[in-house]
């Protein structure tokens, strides 16, 4: 599909095909490509008239069959007729300039296009549908209501509309919680976008690579029976329960020896430091006790007694798993999925928020925390600054809104 947006869209489309009737917008029309592309080369054209189009401008969409030659020629002819190739995101930017999308929704379009997993896709969808804008709108609304109360107390002192500082304080505390919720949602979203890092650790030949391959459903690491086969840290991205997961297979710990081994062990330590989930393998074919490992705070761990078919028993909390018999794998996968899910939250949970939003929200939060509700004129400034931080996300004028709010709730004489 070739998309044209701008006041000249119809004219330029007309230079490329014949039979287009721009006075019948929003209807698919059969047209014939002209010049050296015709005769007989047909396409479907849909004209749009401003402001009812994706960008808010006049638009034409030409649906062609995918022949690279035809598409290329059509693009050339459009440019020759005066069109300009769109810069990245330009259609969306015009949509924002024309008020069809707000900034948050524009970001959602970007995220939608880049979504690799179901989680990201659904998050972006929800943001595009305006869910985030509405959430922020609610937060903003509450702040404006509090601000209005404070302002009314100041501007209408004669009428005795003194605001109760406790009410203001409770309101701000509530808003603070809302913001916290959105921010934690944001952290989870970033986690989901970067991928949950699941690191497999354990002694050499504990079965990490087998597990790695099994979780990926394709062999990647070299699997052999001698310890020290995986000489490197391997990463592979997969999807667990719809969430992007990065699996990391580390070298065996505790293997002395050559340069390569030492390097591998160092990298394993580094990988562990960045892990969100550590899967610790304790093979049943050795006499050694369970491995003791230091994990980063907040990290989750899954304890796996690998090669369980070789020996009975194990330890409290260790899941018995065997690659040969298949014992415990289903349970392992289920537990892994649930841990990943727990970290990332559900798509239908609180709305998730991106990095830029999180920064603005955290600024707003900091402003609110500093508000002195005992001094209304200073409290009003603090709330205004918090609102300004939110305003950056969506972009609105402040002062008239406050006034509107005041007069919805206060009865003021001259």
């Amino acid at each position, binding site marked *: 599909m070739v998309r044209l947006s701008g006041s000249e869209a119809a004219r330029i489309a007309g230079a490329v095909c014949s039979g287009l009737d721009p006075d019948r917008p929003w209807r698919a029309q059969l047209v014939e490509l002209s010049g050296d592309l015709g005769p007989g080369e047909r396409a479907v054209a849909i004209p749009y008239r401003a402001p009812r189009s994706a960008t808010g401008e006049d638009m034409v969409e030409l649906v062609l069959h995918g022949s690279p030659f035809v598409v290329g020629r059509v693009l050339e002819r459009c440019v020759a007729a005066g069109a300009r190739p769109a810069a990245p995101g330009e259609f969306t930017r015009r949509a924002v300039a024309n008020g069809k999308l707000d900034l948050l929704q524009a970001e959602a379009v970007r995220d939608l296009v880049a979504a690799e997993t179901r989680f990201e896709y659904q998050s972006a969808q929800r943001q595009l549908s305006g869910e985030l804008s509405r959430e922020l709108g609610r937060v903003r609304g509450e702040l404006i209501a509090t601000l209005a109360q404070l*302002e009314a107390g*100041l*501007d209408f*002192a004669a009428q005795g509309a003194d605001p109760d500082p406790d009410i203001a304080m409770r309101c701000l505390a509530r808003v603070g919680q809302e913001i916290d919720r959105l921010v934690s949602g944001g952290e989870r979203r970033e986690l989901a976008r970067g991928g949950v890092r699941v690191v497999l650790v354990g002694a050499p030949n504990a079965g990490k690579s087998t597990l790695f391959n099994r979780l990926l459903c394709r062999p990647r690491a070299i699997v052999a029976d001698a310890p020290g086969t995986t000489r490197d840290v391997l990463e592979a991205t997969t999807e667990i329960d719809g969430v992007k997961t990065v699996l990391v297979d580390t070298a065996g710990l505790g293997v002395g020896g050559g340069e390569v081994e030492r390097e591998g062990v160092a990298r394993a330590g580094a990988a562990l430091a960045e892990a969100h989930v550590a899967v610790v393998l304790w093979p049943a074919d050795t006499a050694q006790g369970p491995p003791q490992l230091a994990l980063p705070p907040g990290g989750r761990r899954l304890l796996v007694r690998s090669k369980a078919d070789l020996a009975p028993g194990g330890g409290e909390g260790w899941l018995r798993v065997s690659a040969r018999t298949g014992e415990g794998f289903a349970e392992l996968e289920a537990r892994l999925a649930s841990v990943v899910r727990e970290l990332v939250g559900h798509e239908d949970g609180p709305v998730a928020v991106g990095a830029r939003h999180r920064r603005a929200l955290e600024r707003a939060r900091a402003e609110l925390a500093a508000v002195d509700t005992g001094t209304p*004129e200073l409290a*009003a400034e603090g709330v205004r600054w918090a609102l300004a931080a939110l305003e950056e996300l969506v*972009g*609105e004028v402040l002062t008239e809104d406050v006034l509107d709010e005041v007069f919805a709730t206060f009865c003021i*004489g001259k």
Partner: protein
Amino acid sequence: MRADVVVVGAGHAGCEAAIAAARMGARVIVVTLSRARVGHMPCNPAVGGVGKGHLVAETDALGGVQGWAADRAGLQFKTLNRSRGPAVWGPRAQCDKNRYSQLLRGLLLGIHGVELIEAEVVGLESDDGRVVAVRLGDGRRVEARAVIVTTGTFLDGVLHTGPERRAGGREDEPASRGLGNSLAEHGLELRRFKTGTPPRLHRDSLDYSRLTEEQGDDEPRPFSWRTRAVRNRCLCWSARTLEVVQRIIEDNLHRSPLFSGQIVGIGPRYCPSIEDKVVRFPHHREHTLFIEPEGLDGESMYVNGLATSLPRDVQERVVRSVPGLERAEFLRYGYAVEYDVVAPGQVSAALTARAVPGLWLAGQVLGTSGYEEAAGLGLLAGINAALALRGEAPLVVGRDEGYLGVLVDDVVHVEHREPYRMLTSRAEHRLLLGIDSARERLMARGVELGLVPKRAFHVEHLRWDARERARQELERTRLNPSTETRDAVRRACRVEITAPTTWAGVLRRTDVDPALAAAGLEALSDLPSEDRLVVVSRVRYAGYLERQRKEVARVRRLREAAIPEAFEPRALPGLSREVLEALERHRPRSLGEAARLPGVTPAAVAILAGWLSRRREV
């Protein structure tokens, strides 16, 4: 007849304009429908309040006369928000209406260069698009190089009391007919606004034993630098309506011109009529009313809070349902007045009509409401007309320099659909614009313009220096927690210190009472009591003030970011057709100007700003 400046209307705006222009050397002719009604207060006989008081302070700092007149006509002085910081203090004076009017008339008649004539202005005359004269109802013409229109609520005014409607500008004064048409013919778009006023009751018909007394401040504070001291001369009272009022009004809503569709004009939200209030806030059980004498010797009592245009019999029932007012006699019934205003956006920041060179507009005719807003605008219009005649650039006060700046900027740029009244929440830099700093911000300009004598400025300057010195001392003086020092701190501020700090550090603690500290601190003992409070506040607010100053600087940089002459809006991708048209039509020269054009969205401003900053990098 010929003059440099003709001022149409002698209300609050007209008087300020005429007096300022005359003091700046212009020959001024003021045309009024009634000599007796110069400087009349048709509604609340009071000047000031929160927001409005800020305007009075600034008008006074520039050399205007409203503050001076209010001081002399004042019957009761009260500063609202006294317990809060100076940024939100609202000085207010209840005035003797007749005395106020006499004072302004005396000024007009006494100033060299002003002639007052009683006549109706029925039209403007222009030559080649420029205003050259006004035409009077009796056929005379007055030629002028500048015309300032300050007609208040008179343009095609219609008064409503219940079903009665008649032409009129106010109470018993006729409306002005032809001028509205003439303005329209000259290309000005007019709009219909409305405002209202409460009934006036006879002083002797009220039962004061059932009303609550309201006193003025213990230390009444004058508005003007010209005034040494003022005193309270009378009491006011307050009353509360009962629930029954709601029923009375609801039963009679169909007879209210507001709700029957008889009145078309849009009224202010902040000054709603009693019927408005009842309809919009049905859950409010009672409304507070203030009963204020209109004059020291007169019999008329103004009922603040009861603006209405309900029929007379309903007004009587409403008033008499209030405890204490059961036997009230009406001297005047409340009424609403519908009038023409010049739609927002047609005036420049200097208050000239964009479409009509030589014409200035000020006051309620620009869609504002209130004597203070009118006086401020009138003063600026008068100053700017005089400056224009000298060929000099106009005085434009910025939003970060004063409430006058906020007022003008809002009147010029914002699409208000109702009468505009000043509120502190309109000022984004409120903490920097308190009345304590009005003179520091604006008096120097008053001196430059010749409206404020140097001597007075000098006296004020000494005061500001003393405040600043005291403030710095508080910031710098180290306090070590010796027994002596701890005692001193305890005596002055009622708190304990345990670590080394400064007086400023102590004052910024939330457990310190600023008023007590102001009274107790030695470093401040040489200052007048108000200044002590100001210094304490400035110390306490220091962090916030600094932050606001930074914002002001940032906004100014953005606003002043220059757009080059050769800029082609179409070269920027992502601008909508509406924005492109606005940019091409107005050719703004700075980002701030562009942002203020109607139709330019925040997203468009961001695109422009981005482009400008990238260009600077190149």
